[in-house]
């Protein structure tokens, strides 16, 4: 076994110009150049992308899943943020 495993990187791919980068998975690589090349070989063998982002996994921070209800609670009861909350006459058709 190697003494030290190659770091883990999260891979984000832009499928085509105009779209955002989307998380597709992860890979191991010794450095950023290798991470991009490995990401290309693993995740874009069939032209799935025009741009790659790699971020070392240790730099990704996330909320606690167990506290997710409390975190998203403020949006729960604000139905007035949705267009359907407003009652308008039928004749108006498409507003």
């Amino acid at each position, binding site marked *: 076994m190697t003494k030290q495993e*190659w770091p883990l990187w999260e891979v984000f791919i832009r499928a085509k110009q105009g779209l955002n980068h989307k998380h597709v998975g*992860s890979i191991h690589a*010794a450095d950023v150049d290798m991470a991009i090349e490995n990401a290309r070989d693993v995740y874009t063998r069939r032209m799935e992308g025009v741009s790659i982002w790699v971020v070392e996994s240790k730099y990704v921070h996330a909320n606690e899943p167990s506290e997710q209800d409390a975190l998203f609670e403020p949006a729960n009861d604000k139905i007035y943020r949705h267009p359907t909350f407003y009652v308008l006459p039928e004749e108006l058709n498409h507003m």
Partner: protein
Amino acid sequence: MEVKLEQQFQEKIDQEIRIEPRDWMPEKYRKTLLRQISQHAHSEIVGMLPEGNWITRAPNLRRKVALLAKVQDEAGHGLYLYSAAETLGMSRDEMLEELHSGRAKYSSIFNYPTLTWADMGAIGWLVDGAAIMNQVPLCRASYGPYARAMVRVCKEESFHQRQGYEIMLTLCNGTEAQKAMAQDALNRWWWPSIMMFGPNDDNSPNSAQSMKWKIKRFSNDELRQKFIDVTVPQAELLGLTIPDKDLKWNAEKGHYDFGAINWDEFMNVVAGNGPCNKQRLKARVDAWENGAWVREAAMAHAKKREERKNKQIEAA
């Protein structure tokens, strides 16, 4: 507390809400998934060996690039699956250590030898065909990272099966000797392929729990029957005979009846006594050990570059 969490967990599963890496999950769910996903990853990696055997001897360039691309896909599938398994808290090196020490299993089918070029056809057609049958329902597995990896795998797998069938078709439309070669490959790969679905339902003790957790959606026997039902007409189209004298259409059931499976052979190969078990494992261990200096050198190089960059920043 634990009971309540487990109840909530099962409710999520029942409502088809996917489980993500940092969500609470029963320890046994984590272990079951880790075992299944890492075994699946190992199977993709070991699965490169029987076909790798024929890359340099492919009959022409078209066949060669296709086979090369297929084997490269398998490496990719192994990598998708290893990363999915890593989200459950085991490192890549630990998984490889389990494979290399023989504690982890991989699909037994890869312990059979590839004796002729026709085996490339039979593997693509039958082995990848059986794998697709198994894998399509896994795209809806309850664990998010596994399901997402399987979606990618399944998208790529269909080319594998088609290239295999095309090899068989070409051989079957060729000379007598070529057709005989195709028949011989079918004879050798048929039974191992239908064993790929695992033991009969009565002998598959963990299946019920996996179904309840929606890791598994169909039983081994259901999938095996489905595979046989779609494969028999494909063999007929090739003009080949499936090596099972009990194989017969059952109009009443709407399925093919088939002969008894030799489970002793299956258990024997699983136990490590198949024709190629030792050879396959040795190839993996050698690749890992002979590559150690490359992995270490890459790390040393990355570290040196990083240090040089930091020095430049300090100097500036």
